[in-house]
């Protein structure tokens, strides 16, 4: 009896750890969405496809060029940042001042273009994406709970990524200017900030963060051009849950969604295939009580 309870508790903890791991991926992509949303008030529907494209670049570097995994990881982030920056300059720049819905439509267009291009280049055949080498494959035991190394790697990378981004936005002049430009574009321009370039930098950073999320989830989900579509939905849910304008909230939302989905998928009978729906129901319930998200503010418009 006691033994059964203890093993049930271990099972729950295992699910929580694996939920935190995939939650970290949702958190990264949610953060990428928030980075762009804060400056354009538009959701970037292409964020997931950009991450998928980045992941294919990483796959090519690792499996075709035979580069070292970690080197490929770093190169992919750099290439993605440049790509995101250029994408903004070429595709988004012309509609920068258009209403948010126009921008959303353009990102939807990007979604299909990037998806089609990936299919053209890499075909719609699933590919195995390697996990990080140099780690033992067997799970390790932490206080009686067995935890997958892959899960720990995911959580670790997410935490490092978040720390870097936090430090950048909190302690560097450029980070401060990007925050200022996103929140207060008019005043920032009066202070000499080239807000349009800041927007492009924001796209570059979002693309880099998205690339990390793609490379982290690919070993678990297998790689094909539709890899990131469910992930984008989870990330969107996470961002809305945490407060779409609040980066810290989006990250927290990502982890919450990850854990929630893991627990629902395991413990609610028959919920494995319906877990996204279950998760969304819970999120809607939260939003009914707190319309601005768990950590967001409700906007009061002056009329």
């Amino acid at each position: 009896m006691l033994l059964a309870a203890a093993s049930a508790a271990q099972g729950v903890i295992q699910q929580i750890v694996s939920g935190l791991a995939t939650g970290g991926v949702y958190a990264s992509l949610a953060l990428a969405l928030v980075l762009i949303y804060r400056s354009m008030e538009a959701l970037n529907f292409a964020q997931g496809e950009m991450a998928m494209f980045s992941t294919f670049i990483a796959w090519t570097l690792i499996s075709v060029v035979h580069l070292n995994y970690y080197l490929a990881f770093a190169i992919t982030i750099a290439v993605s940042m440049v790509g995101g920056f250029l994408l903004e300059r070429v595709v988004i720049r012309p509609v920068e001042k258009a209403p948010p819905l126009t921008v959303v439509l353009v990102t939807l267009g990007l979604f299909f273009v990037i998806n089609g291009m990936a299919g053209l280049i890499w075909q719609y055949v699933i590919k195995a994406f390697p996990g990080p080498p140099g780690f033992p494959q067997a799970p390790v035991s932490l206080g009686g709970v067995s935890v997958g190394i892959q899960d720990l790697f995911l959580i670790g990378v997410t935490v490092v990524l978040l720390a870097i981004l936090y430090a950048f936005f909190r302690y560097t002049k450029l980070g401060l200017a990007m925050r200022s430009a996103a929140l207060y574009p008019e005043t920032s321009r009066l202070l000499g900030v080239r807000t349009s370039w800041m927007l492009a930098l924001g796209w570059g950073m979002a693309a880099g963060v998205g690339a990390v999320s793609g490379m982290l989830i690919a070993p678990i989900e297998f790689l094909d051009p539709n890899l990131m579509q469910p992930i984008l939905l989870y990330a969107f849910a996470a961002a809305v849950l945490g407060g779409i304008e609040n980066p810290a909230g989006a990250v927290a939302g990502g982890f919450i969604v990850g854990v929630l989905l893991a627990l629902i998928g395991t413990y609610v009978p028959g919920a494995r295939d319906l877990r996204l729906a279950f998760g969304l129901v819970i999120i809607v319930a939260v939003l009914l009580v707190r319309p601005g998200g768990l950590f967001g503010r409700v906007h009061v418009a002056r009329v």
Partner: protein
Amino acid sequence: MALLELTDVQASYGSVKALHGVSLKVEEGTIVALLGANGAGKTTTLRAISGTVRKTGGNVLFDGQVINQRSPEDVARLGIAHVPEGRGTLAQLTVWENLKMGAYIRRDGAAVRQDFDRVVGYFPWIGKRRDQVAVTLSGGEQQMLAIARALMLRPRMMLLDEPSLGLAPLIVQDIYRIIETINREQRTTILLVEQNARTALHAAHHAYVIEVGHIAVEGNADELASQESIRKSYLGY
């Protein structure tokens, strides 16, 4: 030669014409007040200078160069600090971050640090509350912070949009005292827009009165203030 000169400047918001041809001069080192009723075009005149509204005619000359086509960020880089209507507080940032943003375009780190100290000299409370989020400041403090932030640019010229708006008379006095001190000590040229004509004329050397998009009266500030007919018909006191 005047530091700033507007000749027949016109501007519109969409199809609505806001300035019908405004001409004015601001001599280097002076305080000039632009007075007038709500909707007369005071704010639009400042926005035409800083490039935040589209000009449809006329010329803006700063230090002898035509700056009609410059973007707001380029006008700032010329050394014109515009404190906009509503103060433009960077509300979610801290007091200190607001000041850092004021110095954003500067590359002379050591001089920037000196200017931090000087600004704290003008506004001692800033030194003690530098990590406070700006949205939690009172209206008067936000106005002071906006002026402090403009000073961090080490501007040749400041454009102040209604520094007295919504503030208690004692706070208004404080703020105008500091504006005059900045003008005297830093030799900063100041163009300010006000509805509060009495206070502004007291501080200013020269003044213009704007009515429905064009200049109606101009003159020495003390002379304008002393003429009852002008006070009654244009300044409302």
